[in-house]
Every structure is written in C-alpha cells, then in structure tokens.
C-alpha cells in the first residue's frame, strides 16, 4: 500500500539489500512453480526448468478469496495480496472516477486508504453492521466506524455484493448490492479474506485440506517437504492458536523452527502468546493475548477510551482469578515484552493497572494514559 500511496518505491520494501542473497549463498530465483514431484524430489517451474532438492520448504502464502459472484473476474476487479496485484491495481485505477471495496477486514480498509490517497472516491461495502466486529469488541469497532467516516468514505454497513456488471470491453462498470442498489465504478477491490495458496500442489501427493497439512515440526506427509506461513494448516494447533494463521509473523517463526529441525535439532512449532497489529488510517492497533469480540463467560474487562475518541485500552481478565488474558490498544503503543510477561503469568488486573507505565511504549512527551485508566479501574471496582 505504501508504494501505491507514494510513501515508498518498490526497492524500499525489500527486506534485505540485493547482495544479501549471494553473500549468504542463497540462490534467489524469480519464477513461478507449476508443479512439485515428491517422488523424484523435483520442482518444475513454469518455464519447464526442473530443480532438484534434498529438503523442500513450501511458503507460498495466501490467495484472495472470491465467492463466485457474477463478474468477479472482470478487468478492474481484484484482491490485494501480491506485488502483481499491486501492479494491476496501479494500472486499473489510473484516472478512474469511483471505486468500490467489498469486505471489511484489514486489507479492505487499507485498500480504501490507498484509493483515497489518489483522490478516488470510494464506496466501502461491508456485510456486518459494524467494522470488523467479528474480531473487535463494540467500542473499538465503533471507534473505527467513526474514523472511516471522518475520512469521507461512503461507508455502507450491512451491505452485501450481489454482482459486478461489465461494460462492452469486459471491464467493470458498476456493482449491484443485495438490496438492489447499482453503484457505478471502474474498479472493485474484493477483500473478503484469504486462503492458502496451494493450487499448484493439488495432485502432487502432498496431503492438503484447506492448507498444506503439517505436523508439530511443520513437516508434511512427505518426509523431506515442510511448509510454513500462510499456506500451512496445522494438524494439531498449539493451544489457543488456529490451524491456519495468515498473519505476517507465523512465517517468520515457522521458518526459524524448520531451520532448527533441518539443521539437526528437531524442533516443534511453539508460538507463544498471540499478538497482532494493524493501522486503520491514522489509528494504530495492537493486541496481545485473547480479546474476543463479545465478552465470554467468566471474563471481565476494563475499557478506557480517551475523550478524543481515537485512543483506547481494553484489558480482559478472568473473573475468578483476576489474572489478565488480553490487551487491545488503539492509538497508543504497548510494550510487547511486558504484556507478554503479564499474560504468561496471568498477573492480577490490579497489579497490571498500577504498573501500566511499564507497558507504555508511546514516544517521549506523548500524553500519558495511565492515570485515566487507573481512575477508570477504581471507579468500576469501588
């Protein structure tokens, strides 16, 4: 998104300088894989070239979901996951007058922000009655609803896509919603989630379900083939983690795990306490531990929101033990190590609240929030 918005160029997004690969004796090859042949230990490229391997690691990420809408393959209709998606978005949004983004998740809201940066008016359709409310509790979701509207987005809740209409050249000209509205547009972003990108290994003999099925050591049913990242489906997920986790750091952690195994120290994948982050226009979001969208049985929470309506903190704790189990921070920054330690130890909420300054990761001179949170806590507990 930062390339599209002009914050960066392609080269700025590389994780390492180009010399890195050769220096570390990694042969970086840019190609598409069309087939894997586990029996002969060969990967076949779309050029027809065949590469031998001793150990194979598959890390092919995700592909964007499409749910069979009429017109979903028209020109100007796409998801956003890869660099190739970015290139087509760049080409297909040149000089257009209106865009529609379908699907209220993390990629959807980024796509809206991207389009707005080019002064392209956007209609943002989401199925739910509030933004990302299958993940965010009501207050946080409301905050983002307000924030989206303050950025002049035509934001339509509880609105589902019915079909996408074509012009004479096979390019999108409008979308039609389930309630019959026709919205003229020249570009449609479909951001309704992702699924493991494993089409090319379907008949290879590598066992798959929704993703590549792997054991605790991230090994597939074929002994010398591993998989990691978004394309993986864990046969037995570690407690509190999902079988498929399309988030940026699982690939990193799984990579470190597989590397240990291949280098001779058989290691099981053991991600610690869940964390995630995102940015919704100007509001940063961090979460640690487990904060569910709707309060669960046996849980209570402390929720503080600043008067400006763009900063908030939610701490979830067990009613019985008072031990903390989750943090949601909006517009403020929390220190990962400190939250992780509190969650691992299920530190009691009163201890956490009175030591909140240790978890504050906001830059110097920022308005402190601890005092307000502490007052709020006293108010609900007294």
């Amino acid at each position, binding site marked *: 998104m*930062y*390339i*599209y*918005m*002009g*914050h*960066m*160029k*392609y080269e*700025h*997004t*590389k*994780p*390492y*300088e180009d*010399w890195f690969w050769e220096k570390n004796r990694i042969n970086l090859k840019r190609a598409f894989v069309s087939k894997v042949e586990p029996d002969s230990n060969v990967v076949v490229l779309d050029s027809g070239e065949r590469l031998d391997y001793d150990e194979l690691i598959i890390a092919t990420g995700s592909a964007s979901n499409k749910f069979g809408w009429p017109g979903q393959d028209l020109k100007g209709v796409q998801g956003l996951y890869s660099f190739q998606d970015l290139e087509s978005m*760049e080409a297909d949004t040149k000089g257009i007058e209106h865009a529609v983004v379908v699907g209220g998740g993390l990629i959807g809201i980024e796509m809206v922000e991207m389009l707005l*940066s*080019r*002064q392209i008016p956007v209609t943002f359709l989401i199925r739910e009655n509030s933004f990302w409310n299958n993940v965010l509790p009501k207050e946080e979701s409301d905050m983002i609803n307000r924030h989206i509207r*303050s*950025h002049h987005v035509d934001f339509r809740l509880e609105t589902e896509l019915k079909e996408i209409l074509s012009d004479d050249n096979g390019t999108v000209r409008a979308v039609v919603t389930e309630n019959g509205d026709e919205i003229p547009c020249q570009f449609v972003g479909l951001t309704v989630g992702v699924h493991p990108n494993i089409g090319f290994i379907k008949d290879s003999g590598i066992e798959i379900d929704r993703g590549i099925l792997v054991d605790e050591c991230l090994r597939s049913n074929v002994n010398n083939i591993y998989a990691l990242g978004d394309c993986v489906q864990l046969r037995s997920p570690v407690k509190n983690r999902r079988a498929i986790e399309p988030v*940026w*750091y699982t690939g*990193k*952690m799984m990579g*470190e*795990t597989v590397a*240990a195994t291949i280098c001779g*120290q058989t*290691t*099981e*994948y*053991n*991600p*610690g*306490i869940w*964390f995630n*982050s*995102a*940015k919704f*226009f*100007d509001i*940063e979001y*961090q979460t640690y531990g487990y904060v569910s969208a709707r309060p669960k049985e046996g849980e209570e929470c402390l929720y503080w929101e600043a008067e400006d309506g763009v900063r908030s903190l939610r701490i979830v704790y067990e009613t019985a033990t008072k031990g903390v189990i989750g943090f949601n921070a909006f517009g403020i*920054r*929390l*220190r*990962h*190590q400190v939250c*992780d330690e509190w969650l691992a130890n299920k530190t009691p909420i009163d201890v956490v609240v009175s030591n909140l300054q240790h978890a504050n*990761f*906001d*830059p*110097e*001179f*920022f*308005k402190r929030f601890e005092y307000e949170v502490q007052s709020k806590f006293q108010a609900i507990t007294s």
Partner: protein
Amino acid sequence: MSKEGFSISLASPHAPDMDGIQKLGIALFTLAFLFTLVGVFGPAAHNPDLFFYFGFVGSVIGLSIYTVRTFLNRPAGVQNNHIFTSSLTNRGLWGWALGIFLTGFYVVLYWGSDDLWSGSPLVLLFDPISRGLFNHPPDRWFLYSFIYTVSILIMGVRAILKYRHSNYQIIRTSSIMFFQLGFAFLIPQFLKAMSQPEYYFSYFWPLDYDILFPNSVDALLSNGALGVWMLIISAVLTFIATPILTYFFGKRWYCSWVCGCGGLANTAGDPFRQLSDKSMKAWKIERWLIHSVLLFIIGLTILLWVNSYLEGGIFGSISHSLTKVYAFLIGQAFAGVVGVGFYPLLGTRVWCRFGCPMAAYLGLLQKYFSRFRITTNGGQCISCGNCSTYCEMGIDVQSYAQRGENVVRASCVGCGICSTVCPRGVLNLENGSTHTDRQNNNPITFGNDGVGLRE
C-alpha cells in the same frame, strides 16, 4: 511505479481542490515573490523598504498561509502520500532544478567576489531588517543568516503541522527553531552590532573548527572579560557538557535539538529526508569519511598550537596552508555547497552524516558510552520499510527492527521520525537506566517459544 506529473508543492501534489484560503495564500506568494524578483534585479537597491515588506515579507506570509491551510485540511497523522511520485521530492526535474539552484547559490555565496556582493540589490533588499534590528547595513553573511533563519522558522511551522500527531516532533522542532532564532541569529547579530565577537553559543569545536585555533583564542582573550567568558564556555561545552549530555540523551540533544545544520535539515530539508542512501556501501563510506574529517581537525588544531608555541619553528607555513585547505574543502565545499545544495539529490543530512566532525565525536560517545538507544518492540515489526526509507541518516532501521534488535548506531541523530512513521508502534527512542543493557542480540522472533539459540 511511474512518476506522475510535475508539482512544486512541498505538501501534497494530489491534494483535494484548493479552498479559498489556500488560493489566497498561493496568489499572495506568487505576486509578492515576483515583486521581490523585480526588486532583486535593481530597484530594491533604491527602495529596499518597498521590496522588503511588500515583496519578501509578503511572499513569506503567502507561503505560510498556504502551508498552514494545506496541512490543517488533512487529519493529523503520517502524511507521506506521493513523496515518491512527486518530481521535487523524488529527484525529478524540479528536484534537480532546486539542487542546482541551491548549489549555485552556495558557490556564489562563498566564493563570489566582494565586488559582486557589495551594493548588490539582493543584499540591500534586507537593509530594512538589518538596520531596524541591529542598526548596521546588511552584507552577504547577514543575508545568508537571515534567509537561513527564516527558512528554519517557516519550514519549522510546516514540520510541526505535518507531524502534529507527535508531541516529540512538535517539541523537538520548536527547540530547533528557538536555538536558531536566538542563539544562531539574534545573539550573534547583536554582539556584532555592539562591536563584540560574533559568537555562536550553539556551535562549538570541532564543528566551529577555528574557535580553538590559537588566533581565535588570542583574539577572544584580548577582548577582555566577555572574550574570556566565551572561551571558557566553548571549552566547557566541548569537553564537559557534550560527553555528559550525550551519555544521558544520546547525540540527539545536539544534532536534532540545538544544531543549526541539523535544524535546517529537519525543517527546510524535511521534504527530502527520504533521499538518503541506505546501502551498506554508503555506510562504509560514511565511517571512513566522517572519522577522517574528525582526525583532520584534531590534528590540525594540535599542529597549530605546537606551531604557535614554537613560533613557526618546525612547521612554518604548512599549518597555515592546511587551515586554508580545511576551510575550503570541509568548512565551505562540504558543509555548505554539498551539505545543503544537494538536499534534493542526496537527502538532507549529507554533511551531518559524512562530514561533520562534531557528529563524529558525538557518534563515538553515543556508540560506546550512552544510555540512548532505539528500542524495538518485541516481534511487532512487519518489515514494511517506512523507518529505513525516512531515516535521514541512511540507517537501515528495518534491518534491526525485523530482527527484534535495538538500534545502537553512532550516526543516529535521534530525530525520531522512524518511530513517528512506524505504522505498528515498533520503534521508540529511549534513554535507559544504563549504557550496558542496550544491545539485545537474540535474533529469534520474540514470542517464538519453541526456538532458542544454542549455547
């Protein structure tokens, strides 16, 4: 991605249609600037009041109105849209044009003859402010000092508006503006007006390289109590205050809070900060170059004192020639012509990063004896690249952040922009409780409990 159109805007070339106030600002700026130009080609020499107030001051007001309105029209938050698609800020036609113009200006400023400058309408244009405030006629150095200060003030306001979601940036930018206006402009100009040494309290050795030369010391000493006091302050700032402040706060207390060179970079230069070279190769050149300049000036200062003590007995005129070489190559060509002239081509901190001996000295202190570090927040880095892209010192911040490693680098001036532009709250400038706990060298992603380093 392709470059789009040309825009001279320092704000956002794709901004929504301008409103009435923005248009008024631009109109005022354009008219007043053209009027100033007319004056500079002659008439300003005869009627400086008219051209200064209706030309120069008018264009400053017009530009300020436009800038303030443009930024306030957008919500507070990171505003880097279109920086790499705009010709001015991505080394396009306008970037090169501005770079050549600035470079040319510095060449003429430093090396133009006195005939060229004395009585020039460009200098006389500033007669009203020079006489009004300090009661002496302007010369080219007054012109330079005044424009430099005005640039820091106007573009400082712009930086404050651009980064208004960050109190660190607001306070830091205000500090830069304060020190430039008071310590690098008003005080020295008043001293000069009162026939005292033109002393800059915000510059000291080795950046103000000749302040500790024997000649300067003699001159200050012969100036009585004020001179002696200035000399003592210089020595204390260089040898006592600098190590102590750097130990507690890192080199930022000077480089991005006080120094005028850094001040210009972080205000007028802010639109160009992303152009610094982040490669490992540039880092290698940096280390050789900046430490060579430091050794050069230390050696030269010692040489001059030995020579002075021996009354020229051994080194004769060599030290004198070396002083001239340093003044020309480092003091003028590097610090001025390249340092500022190349803003739109090489980014804003070329001098601070590759040449400044003060930065080298502060850097050594920061690297080996300081509590300052940029903390990386656990495993939250998504490797987006914003921090490295917007680092004016060319530090590949991301290479540290994505390994979960704190950034401890000699060159970091602590401007805080990496932390400001980070979309995930990963980076924070911190002064720890000691200098020994700064480096955390566990490259395993934080939160990956299954993997550890071998003993």
